[in-house]
């Protein structure tokens, strides 16, 4: 049974897994060569649908279903979301740096399937080395005839452009990304229309995450049903988790989903550093509500995480041990989101900084009795009902994201917040 798909090559050939030579020597582009001759675009789409591959960018939307929404208008675009800015998430980086041709082969196959002649790879601005590696790989692919006017003499034409962002988390949100790509302010657009109908330059556009598309060559080589046979229902295939925080062995791990959180943290992550006690963890990037040891024996799947009031999101797991000041941790996440708010909608723009300042006050010993109620009510005005999946008064999910750490500490560690406020200096602000 397959237990790894994406990281096999880089593991086996750490020195040169990013090169075309190594990629071809390990079977790379053979799938493309074959598919262009033997498969119709529709057949490829069917395989991806059958694979039940869910998006790896955060929302977990089934890729095959999204592809089915692509409107017929021409031209159509494929955009690879390589903005990877979610705190605690660093798996796309590895795929970009260590196996760019796997992504490119996925892009060519997907473009063929979708009737796309222009694809874009939008890489976060800070990822200079990954961007260089991808750029070099794109050039190699052009030279070898895997990209360009007439790919492998099949008549297929595809240009791939690598674009570097300018350092804004919000540009990972797909419509802000499209605005940024068009040279506009990186602000999320109103949906609908969804990108598949009106995306880049108002043309039908598929936006997929790096990891999502990196799976395509394997799916086409082995068949959608083979992929669908890996892992539990609803969480098919493998997935790269970025483990960080107070685990003994932080890093990226490609695994088949369905193990328990206990296995994830204690086996894969090697347990808690210095033999400390586990306090809590963020299961899927900074936007995700936190888990506590009470759910350690629950399975790691998309649907179970959702049922428990959080998500696997971007696959970034941040573990916190007993020494963690959770209020300070929440503050640091809220600060991040306040800094990254695009500022277009009122509740996020104003609320984020307000929440940051209240938490700041509490952490610096100037909290007041009323602050707990105030924090929760301000959160409620951003994400009404404070429920999961979140409602929002904002345009995009960044608003509710900044609510997650606050509701997490209020749900699980309220007494710590209260204690902090009780010991506040009486003068207050």
């Amino acid at each position: 049974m397959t237990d790894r798909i994406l990281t096999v090559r880089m593991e086996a050939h750490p020195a040169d897994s990013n090169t075309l030579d190594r990629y071809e020597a390990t079977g790379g582009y053979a799938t493309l060569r074959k598919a262009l001759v033997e498969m119709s675009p529709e057949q490829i789409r069917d395989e991806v649908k059958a694979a039940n591959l869910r998006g790896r960018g955060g929302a977990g939307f089934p890729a095959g279903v999204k592809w089915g929404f692509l409107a017929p208008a021409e031209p159509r675009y494929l955009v690879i979301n390589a903005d990877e800015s979610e705190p605690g998430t660093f798996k796309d980086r590895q795929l970009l740096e260590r196996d760019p041709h796997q992504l490119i082969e996925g892009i060519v196959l997907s473009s063929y399937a979708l009737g796309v002649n222009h694809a874009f790879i939008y890489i976060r601005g800070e990822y200079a080395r990954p961007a260089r590696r991808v750029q070099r790989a794109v050039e190699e692919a052009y030279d070898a005839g895997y990209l360009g006017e007439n790919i492998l003499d099949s008549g297929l034409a595809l240009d791939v452009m690598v674009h570097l962002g300018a350092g804004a988390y919000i540009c990972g949100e797909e419509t802000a990304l499209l605005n940024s790509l068009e040279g506009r302010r990186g602000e999320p657009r109103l949906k609908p229309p969804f990108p598949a109908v009106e995306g880049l330059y108002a043309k039908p556009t598929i936006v997929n995450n790096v990891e999502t598309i990196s799976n395509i060559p394997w799916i086409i080589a082995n068949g959608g049903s083979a992929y669908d046979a890996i892992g539990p229902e609803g969480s098919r295939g493998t997935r790269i988790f970025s483990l960080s925080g107070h685990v003994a062995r932080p890093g990226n791990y490609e695994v088949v989903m369905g193990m328990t959180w206990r296995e994830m943290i204690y086996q894969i992550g090697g347990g808690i550093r210095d033999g400390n006690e586990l306090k809590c963890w963020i299961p899927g990037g900074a936007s995700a509500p936190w888990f506590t040891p009470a759910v350690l024996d629950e399975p790691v799947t998309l649907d179970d995480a959702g049922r428990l009031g959080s998500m696997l999101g971007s696959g970034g797991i941040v573990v916190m041990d007993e020494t963690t000041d959770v209020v300070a941790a929440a503050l640091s996440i809220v600060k991040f989101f306040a800094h990254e708010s695009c500022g277009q909608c009122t509740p996020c723009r104003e609320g984020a900084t307000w929440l940051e300042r209240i938490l700041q006050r509490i952490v610096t010993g100037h909290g007041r009795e009323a602050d707990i109620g105030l924090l929760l009510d301000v959160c409620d005005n951003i994400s009404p009902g404070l429920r999961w999946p979140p409602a929002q008064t904002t345009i995009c999910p960044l608003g509710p994201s900044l609510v997650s750490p606050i509701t997490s500490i209020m749900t699980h560690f309220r007494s710590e917040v209260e204690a902090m406020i009780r010991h506040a200096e009486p003068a207050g602000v």
Partner: protein
Amino acid sequence: MSDRITIMLDGRPVEVDAGVLLIQAAQDAGTYIPRFCWHPRMNPVGMCRMCLVEVEGPGGTMLTTSCTVPVSEGMVVHTASETVKKAQEGVLEFLLINHPLDCPVCDRGGECPLQDQTMAFGPGESRYVEEKRHFEKPIPISDLVMLDRERCILCARCVRFSDDIAGDPLIEFLDRGNYTQVNTFADEPFASYFSGNTVQICPVGALTATPYRFRARPWDLEAVESVCAGCSVGCRVSVQSSQNEILRLLGVDVEATNHGWLCDKGRFGFQHLAAPDRLTTPLVRGEDGELHEASWSDALDRAARGLAAIVDSSGEGAVAGLGGSRSTNEEALAFERLMRHTIGTPHLDAAMGDALDARLLAAAPRRGLIGDLEQASTVLVWGPDLREELPVLYLRVRRAVAELGAGLVVVHPRASGLDTIADHVVRYRPGEGGALLARLAAGDGDLAEVRSALDDGPVVAIVGRTGLTEDGDLAGAVAGFAAELPDASVLAVSRRSNLYGAIDMGLAPGMGPGRVGEDPGRDADGIVEGLRDGSVKGLVLLGADPAGDHPSGTAGDALSRAEFVVSIDLFINDSNRGADVVLPAAGFAEVEGTMTNLEGRVQKVNRLVPAPGQARPANEILADLADRLGGKWESSTAESLASDIATLVPYADVSWEALDRGTGGDGILARGGDVVYSVPTVSTSVGNGMALHLGRVLYDRGTALMMDPSLAKLTQKPVLHLHPDDASSLGVAVGDQVRVSGSDGSAEVDAAVDPSLSPGVVYLPFNLGVSVGSDPSVTVEKVT
């Protein structure tokens, strides 16, 4: 008619227009949903989040911004549920935490949506104890507009207006998150002819207009609706005053004309009315050769005697009348009576030799409406630079093209405001338009595509004089060509505000009131010519300044030869400085009456403030003068003249009562009449040497503008624009002095380079203080 559908609004079924946004549908059904960023004339952005409501869907009830979702059949909407109320209160609180709450010193205080909605929906007290956001305040972002970023609620109305409506994307959001601000770019000032609209639509007091800042509180203002007198588009305005002084104009949203917008010249141009130089008493030339104050009766006696003497000595035809295009229809009709009937001269013209044939303006073939632009598939603009001359028509064309997707063909001697959104831009040399038209009609060579675009109707053809060196008949020929297209309507345009009304009132040679034929007479060119050769000896000017406005630039000299000149005006200008009698007239918002716009749309203008000093409505002055000349008029008040106007065939439906009552701002179309326009053929004089394009700019040195403290400083100095090839062959660099010599003089001006001109064509803005005549043929040399 749009389809109607039923939605459930707060538990009651209501019928609404299909396809409209929920916020609009609810409002039409009587439920007002609070909003800040949504504006009915702009695309929604859903940014402020104030308009959140709950909509029931397959996945349960969802909070949704009502400004971004169109209604659909059976939609179930809750606008006042607990969740909605909490969300709206939350948004308001968010908006207020950083708001300075300096309402007592804010121009918007008292008419501020933020203040109002805080009262209606807002939280009682502030829970925000942190320091508010600070910005330097206020900063000037243009000569007319100040920005206070602390008050700004970041609704993007100003940004959207500038980007989408005006096409002047100079005000933008900078920074992000909590530090987001609107601002202009440091190296690009907010130089827009439309900046005042941003002040009007800003939902708070963040944008304020320098002419109005700190001048009044909204509850002290008195207001009437009227029509802007800036140009012939006829934008609807609300004129507002305090203590008998006009303090501001606001655009009123009228579907037919302005959609609520105004240009800055129209919006801010009222200040000349209170200028210290405004005429307040009659003036009569004394023995010493100077103008002296006089009583009304002395001045009128003197005026009547002077005119009668000329009639006695040289006949009726030795007297002529110029003007009336800035007057009301009632005043214009009085002028026509005085000239054609009481005095008995056929020589009268409301235009200044700078417009088009009066028959074309009053009876263009397939005459269209501004509103035709909404359905246009192609717009042809072969006429003035609309942004400079008819700014709100420019906005309507922009909307047709940029928003509604019409194709656009612009024919002009140089870059004009619409070029950036045009599908086809055609340049030509002034004087050679006839040949170009022939090639266009034939679809010659590179014009084939343009020609076929014009077969794709409906076409709206906007024709007029591209510049003042151009033969006015060219526009007529273009109108004739357009009228022959399969599906086209024609707007023949000229700028002065009530020129169309004045022509309809008979202020044109050979045309009497109601678009009927009359004995032929001299037009403005002929009158100027007559003054020069002595065949015209007496002149009556009604709000006219031929010395400044006649394209030849030599009318002033001709005027100085007149034996006797009477001027009815608001100011002393180059034309009446040497007059024998100057009579002070009431102006905009000081008289009641009607005006007729370029479509033939008649609208009511209203009185709000008294005229200064002894100034009087022109029709009363004209009636008194007629009385002294033996004319027996039955009607002299504006109201009685209005009833006379209603007897004219095209104006049969027009009455003050009807205009004030049911027709709203849309006015009443005056259509029909006997006059027909016969399309001329134009000759082409292919010149060698340099050809002059004499184009208008919005802020020229017209008297009213120069008397306006806010606008006068916006006029620029005259510069001669040369094609780069011509500049280099003349050895001229930008900023060098050049001498340009034309049919009627020469001038030394700075040179600028303009690659949009054809080689061999130079461009000089008209009425910026230099004049070389209106013949296209000029010579240019470098001044060393």
